[in-house]
């Protein structure tokens, strides 16, 4: 059984909207200074949901490389979502805790690049290359933001993640 191109595009659009909501939540909560707030769980929940979705995509994959990459993707997203959830609940206090999400983002970007096996003349392959590079650069900016704590890196991180969500939302049919 395989799924049609329109269904694949629909899955990308839906995930793009969830991702955009998550990026806005993250940027918005970072902007809140001096107001009491509880930690937002939207990021780890979106990561866990995406991990489950990736396992579903690996079941319905049309080729071996699709199945392998999507299953690896699912593992990375589920691990990152679980660790980030525990970190936000205050149960993970290791020094590497804040680095989990940026590194997972960069790894997911690498998997996007590995996933785009078609020629660049194919719009879907081109989109995957663009999304992969956006995620790799966002991961690098996220690591720099965690290590350096400069607002410029946070801006770069948020902008690249928002660009990735818009690439998902404009995924060709």
């Amino acid at each position: 059984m395989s799924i049609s191109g329109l269904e694949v595009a629909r899955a990308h659009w839906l995930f793009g909207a969830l991702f955009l909501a998550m990026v806005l939540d993250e940027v918005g909560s970072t902007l809140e200074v001096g107001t009491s707030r509880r930690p937002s769980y939207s990021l780890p929940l979106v990561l866990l949901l995406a991990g489950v979705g990736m396992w579903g995509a690996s079941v319905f994959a049309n080729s071996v490389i699709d199945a392998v990459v999507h299953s690896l993707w699912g593992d990375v997203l589920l691990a990152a979502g679980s660790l980030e959830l525990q970190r936000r609940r205050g149960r993970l206090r290791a020094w590497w805790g804040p680095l989990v999400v940026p590194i997972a983002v960069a790894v997911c970007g690498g998997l996007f690049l590995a996933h785009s096996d078609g020629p660049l003349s194919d719009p879907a392959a081109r989109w995957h290359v663009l999304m992969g590079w956006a995620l790799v650069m966002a991961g690098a900016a996220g690591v720099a933001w965690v290590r350096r704590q400069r607002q410029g890196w946070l801006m770069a991180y948020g902008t690249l993640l928002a660009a990735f969500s818009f690439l998902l939302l404009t995924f060709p049919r």
Partner: protein
Amino acid sequence: MRSRGPRAGRTDDPEAVSRQQNSSASGMVYKVVPGRHGIGVREVMATVAHPHGPFVRRADASRSAQRPILPVLSALTVRNWLGLAVLAVGLVWTVAWNPTLSWYGFTPVGLYHSFDQPPILVALVGLRFAVRARGARARASGSEPGERD
């Protein structure tokens, strides 16, 4: 607080600038510190909204270390405007793409297919964010009455 860089002498009196900022309508209090980029870095002391108007309390050290990206507006205002901007993008996109959008009926699958189209999804995300920002503003204005002393 940041240490003064070599450009400190060229900057206006920080206290005077800070007093100017205090009177701004945004309700935020800043320490203006000369930055390495020459435009000055605004360090937020704190801001607390209240139904009877904004008032200020001094933030603790960990909070004052954080600086907002757009310090001229209050954080919740920024969230509100961000949500409205995304909503506007979604609406403009919906109008521009109107001929390509489809309606699949009122069945559950039809509704999912109808809403799962990029312009509509962007508009829904913007709407949700703007509504949540309004809710957060309402909670912030009503939740800390004891802070006014």
